[in-house]
């Protein structure tokens, strides 16, 4: 199986403070990498490097065969990102937001409308995002992330703020069933391990756990 993501000795700093220290991991096409770690361990930084939003300072990073940061332009448009923030405009309606991103990604507007139905907010499509509930915004953010049918999904607590029914709506789009390569940052250890093919446990920016097998007890120790 070809590697969709390959990191070797990845380092990233913010000023003098190291955020990622020599992280190495490989994820095959269609596999899910679950990333665990306490707050400030470097999980979000890792996702932002893979999304080409942050430059790596050392080591090698390859996403879908493109080397970052030099070939970042090859990766953009092939990854979908669901982060802590929705990357949406609060004063635009749900539909206007998706149509805007559809234009940037050269995607048919019909797909935007279909996704609004699939995430169950077509009834509120004409409402400004500012007036939607937290869960609805999260569902809309997921629709935005898969609008261009990305090969890789970068998910930072994608189910945060969602009730079980809403989370179910998203499963075909961002769950294992989507068939995409996924990097899933989560604090839900049991669910993360259930979904993972590869596990990465970060502590203070360094990989403390890495591989295809990890015990729940070892992962929970990352939070102590």
């Amino acid at each position, binding site marked *: 199986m070809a590697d969709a993501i390959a990191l070797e000795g990845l380092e990233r700093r913010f000023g003098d403070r190291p955020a990622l220290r020599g992280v190495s991991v490989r994820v095959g096409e269609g596999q899910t990498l679950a990333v665990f770690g306490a707050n400030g361990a470097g999980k979000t930084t890792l996702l932002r490097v893979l999304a*080409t939003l942050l430059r790596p300072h050392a080591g090698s990073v390859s996403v879908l065969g493109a080397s970052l940061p030099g070939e970042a332009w090859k990766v*953009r448009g092939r990854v979908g990102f669901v982060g802590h923030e929705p990357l949406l405009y609060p004063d*635009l309606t749900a539909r206007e937001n998706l149509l805007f991103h559809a234009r*940037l990604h050269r995607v048919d507007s019909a797909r935007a409308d279909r996704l609004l139905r699939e995430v169950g907010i077509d009834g509120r499509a004409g409402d400004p995002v500012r007036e939607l509930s937290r869960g609805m915004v999260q569902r809309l953010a997921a629709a935005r992330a898969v609008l261009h049918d990305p090969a890789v999904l970068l998910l930072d607590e994608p189910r945060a703020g969602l009730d079980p029914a809403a989370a179910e709506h998203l499963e075909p789009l961002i769950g294992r069933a989507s068939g995409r390569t996924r990097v899933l940052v989560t604090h839900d250890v049991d669910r993360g391990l259930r979904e993972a093919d590869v596990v990465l446990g970060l502590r203070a920016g360094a990989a403390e756990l890495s591989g295809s097998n990890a015990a729940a007890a070892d992962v929970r120790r990352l939070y102590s």
Partner: protein
Amino acid sequence: MIRPALAILRKDLRLELRTRESVPAMALFSLTVFVLFHFGLHRDSVDGAMASGVLWVTLLLATVLGVNRLFASEREGRALDGILLAPIDRTAVYLAKAAGLFLYLVLLELVAVPAFAILLLGPGLGGAFPELIAILLLADLGLAGVGALVSGLAAEARARDVVVPLLLLPLLVPVLIAAARATEPFLMSHAGPHQLAKWLGFLGVYDTVFLLLAVAVFDYLLED
């Protein structure tokens, strides 16, 4: 590059129409400054160099307000990341922001210049319309080109309210000099000798240099 730039511009204009946060603030600010000059100078009317200086300093300061808000919608909800993840040339962001600011300035001047003529200007503007429009448009191009560049530079800065005027105003001094000197003869009671071609040429060269410079460097400004 043009297609995504138009998508971003359309989105920005829609947001401005909906929120009315930039142009009305710039226009109201200009009117307030004219009233302040009216009382502060303790004169019923001004003409010549004084009138030109008052008009252009006011327009420049109103531009700062617009530049400060140019990326405001992108900051909320980290919407800029959504654009940066798209497979587009990032220069499109610059072109859209510069075009948007240019339109804001034209709208501002549709209000501010007649208000200036009514509140402060002694001689009428009637005879100098074509020349004044040429000066305004060329100066607006420079203000918008440099304004969008500085706004992009300060988009993620914490102290952007301070950074924007400190960077922007010195860069705009040549525009102020050329626009004020070009406008001065047309704001006299009896139109004096002018060097319109020289100052329009100067503005044209300034606009070209800064637009080319901005197009060359803007991609790097949006890197982390």
